[in-house]
């Protein structure tokens, strides 16, 4: 193709479609409850269009010996670094408004994922356009499908359900006031009214790691905050300012340190299946992925059961 000749739109269109599709699929299989509103989708889609367009036009520009255009396109691509900051700022602002926070690690993970997805969409568009340009349309379309699928597989990280079993557990109180989710001691609930509320409305699950990797994830306190957030987002939580004991908690089985974790929540919608599904769908955070070291202070934040002198009840 000559720089003065007519532009061949086909590779660009195929590449654009592949890149856009890659971003669309990522939106559908969103790892989180974000974005949740049309306005969020619109901005993501707009970015997707731009990313796919940059990726698909760069090969065409290079092949047409339009080096100025190609340079400008790479400049445009660097603008996508701001996506990460924007996402982080939005979520951090939201953090102070919600009662069950996502936690800084989770926010960073979401922000990085959003940034990476735009770049992925660009790469898919670029590779597809290149194949279409230098081989032919049929191979280009086939390669586009392969790239989209590979990208999709590459980008979907492990979830809690992959590394842990999540089972319903009974809620009970020991020694009068210690809240247990199955075998896992959660916290000390000093008020009688709150204890009754837990017994009446509460839900509890146990998270049992399938392997060391699952255990490493659970030991990460940020991971457990993310799980608590996803649980609360799925079934709702009966909590208001001034009711700290009704905060959904996800704690390890301490002091036995078996690697098991428990979660208690007072939901709005008492649906254990939905709760378990949400927990299984929580992404494994990057910060907790490979570390085998406990990320939390091994000293329990609450009095140990044996420290209580009362033997009755």
């Amino acid at each position, binding site marked *: 193709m000559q720089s003065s000749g007519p532009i061949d739109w086909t590779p660009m269109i195929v590449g654009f479609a592949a890149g856009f599709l890659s971003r669309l699929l990522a939106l559908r299989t969103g790892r989180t409850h974000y974005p949740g509103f049309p306005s969020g989708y619109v901005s993501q889609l707009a970015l997707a269009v731009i990313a796919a367009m940059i990726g698909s036009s760069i090969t065409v520009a290079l092949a047409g010996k339009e080096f100025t255009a190609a340079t400008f396109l790479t400049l445009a691509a660097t603008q996508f670094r701001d996506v990460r900051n924007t996402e982080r700022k939005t979520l951090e602002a939201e953090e102070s408004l919600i009662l069950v926070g996502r936690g800084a690690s989770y926010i960073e993970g979401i922000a990085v994922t959003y940034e990476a997805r735009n770049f992925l969409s660009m790469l898919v568009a670029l590779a597809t356009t290149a194949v279409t340009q230098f081989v032919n349309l049929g191979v280009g379309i086939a390669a586009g499908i392969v790239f989209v699928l590979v990208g999709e597989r590459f980008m979907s990280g492990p979830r809690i359900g992959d590394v842990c079993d999540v089972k319903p557990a009974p809620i009970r109180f020991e020694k009068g006031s210690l809240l247990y989710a199955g075998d896992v001691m959660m916290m000390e609930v000093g008020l009688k009214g709150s204890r009754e509320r837990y017994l009446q409305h509460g839900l509890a699950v146990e998270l049992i790691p399938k392997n060391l990797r699952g255990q490493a994830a659970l030991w990460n*306190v940020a991971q457990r905050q993310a799980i608590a957030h996803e649980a609360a987002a799925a079934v709702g939580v009966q*909590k208001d300012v001034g009711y700290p004991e009704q905060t959904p*908690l996800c704690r390890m089985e301490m002091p036995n340190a078996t690697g098991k974790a428990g979660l208690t929540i007072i939901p709005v919608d008492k649906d254990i299946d939905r709760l378990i599904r949400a927990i299984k769908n929580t992404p494994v955070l990057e910060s907790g992925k490979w570390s085998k070291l406990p990320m939390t202070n091994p000293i329990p934040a609450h009095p140990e059961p044996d420290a209580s002198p009362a033997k009755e009840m």
Partner: protein
Amino acid sequence: MAVAPTPVMFAIVTTKPNAVHGGMAPVFVVESEEERDRVAMWISRITNATVHDLHNGTLILTVNQVSPPGGG
């Protein structure tokens, strides 16, 4: 470093005035267990402090020094 709760003593509500001595937290001495639970609940709702039962007639209220949103 992830945010881990660091509870500090906020208030003490007891039916046994001899069992607790003063320190950083105010001590509320009450007559009965019902009154103790009521006072503790009141303070908790007002200040967002968490109530813990020591099972010796004393309730302590703690607040998290570095607290994630919602006091988790």
